[in-house]
């Protein structure tokens, strides 16, 4: 089924990486580290599940679709839901106050919305890095 595969196997439970440490294979248990992504990087978005915020963002940017956000998914870091921010090369944890939907598509939309809010914030670390190191 699309959207639930990783490393050639199938994620049956959308909460797999929240309920367990994700160390399933003998090799993963041996090294104490999960191998591969904790979500399906190839999952294409279901546009019926767009949030109002994302629709506004698309309109503001002049895009007819999610554009680069199609590659953004909700992942899981140390048992917490998180989204990867390419601008800081790190995970940003989703606040505990946000209730997670029961499917990956809706979770991905939440992750996209949070990532935009975080990246465009004046508190984002890139703001200061840019001031210090920008070339032009």
């Amino acid at each position: 089924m699309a959207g639930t595969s990783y490393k050639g196997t199938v994620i049956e439970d959308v909460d797999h990486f929240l309920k367990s440490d994700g160390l399933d294979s003998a090799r993963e248990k041996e090294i104490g580290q999960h191998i591969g992504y904790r979500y399906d990087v190839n999952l294409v978005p279901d546009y019926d599940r767009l949030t109002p915020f994302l629709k506004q963002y698309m309109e503001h940017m002049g895009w007819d679709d999610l554009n680069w956000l199609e590659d953004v998914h909700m992942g899981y870091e140390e048992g917490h839901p998180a989204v990867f921010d390419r601008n800081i090369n790190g995970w940003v944890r989703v606040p505990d106050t946000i209730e997670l939907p029961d499917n990956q598509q809706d979770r991905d939309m939440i992750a996209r919305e949070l990532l935009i809010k975080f990246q465009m914030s004046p508190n984002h670390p890139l703001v200061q890095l840019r001031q210090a190191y920008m070339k032009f």
Partner: protein
Amino acid sequence: MAGMSWTPDLDYGKSQETRARDLGMNTEPLTGRSMEVFFEPAEEENFVYPWAKDVDFNKRTELDADGLTTTEVNAKIRELMDQGYGTIVIQNPRGKHSLGVGILNRLNLIIEGSTGYFSTGLIDGPNVRVNGRVGWSCGENMMSGTVVVEKNAGSTFGAAIRGGDLVCKGHVGSRTGIDMKGGTIIVGGDTGALSGFMMQRGRMVVCGNAGKNLGDSMYDGTIYVGGKIRSLGVDAVEAELTQLDQAWLTRKLTQYGLMPEQGVGHFTKIVAGKQLWNYDNLEPTEKKLIL
């Protein structure tokens, strides 16, 4: 987080080293400080970066590139964005290399003609239309936005692309999407050999035929091909085209006016066989050698 804020009065005339030091970004003051940022999602409602230029898509101007160097054209684009122009038309590009690179802003950029190598690379946000052909490595390292090329493109189209939509309505050369790490590359015609070489993620859609060694050594990502595939590369395997894939393809191809008459049901989906993910088999042996 303390100290993480925009400093509009910072003197940019100073050297980079001095600026970094003034902001406390050297080893000594950072010792013991946390890089953790506490963020409240409800407080933020911005759609653009804090430093983005405020442009209006309805404010349009033209820029004649004739007689200007590439650097002058690119600097002029920035000047026009500073003045609030959100739609810029470049006339007489005359195949210049590196046109429109490094634009980190929302913008409609229209290039009336053909460009040379590395055009519109490293962009983050703009919508670009090239009403001609492009040379090698168009959209290289693109982060977000859209680039639509009306005619043919050279080799390494979308090399190392990270995000956004890169569209060529004609044919493209070889090594399309080499090392791509995200985003979508759409080719209306055929693509050459070794397309998707070392692809890591993202999506490539080829409406025509694909040359030999398609998806060679791909680690992840998806390639959809509407025509014939001359041969698959190492570890590229065929996968089932799902309903979700078809819905996404239909939406994407319709958006760019490339929807085939017969629909998308005939597309072949290629993914990584992941047999190259063999470090988990190699490492135990290495570990034994060390121990």
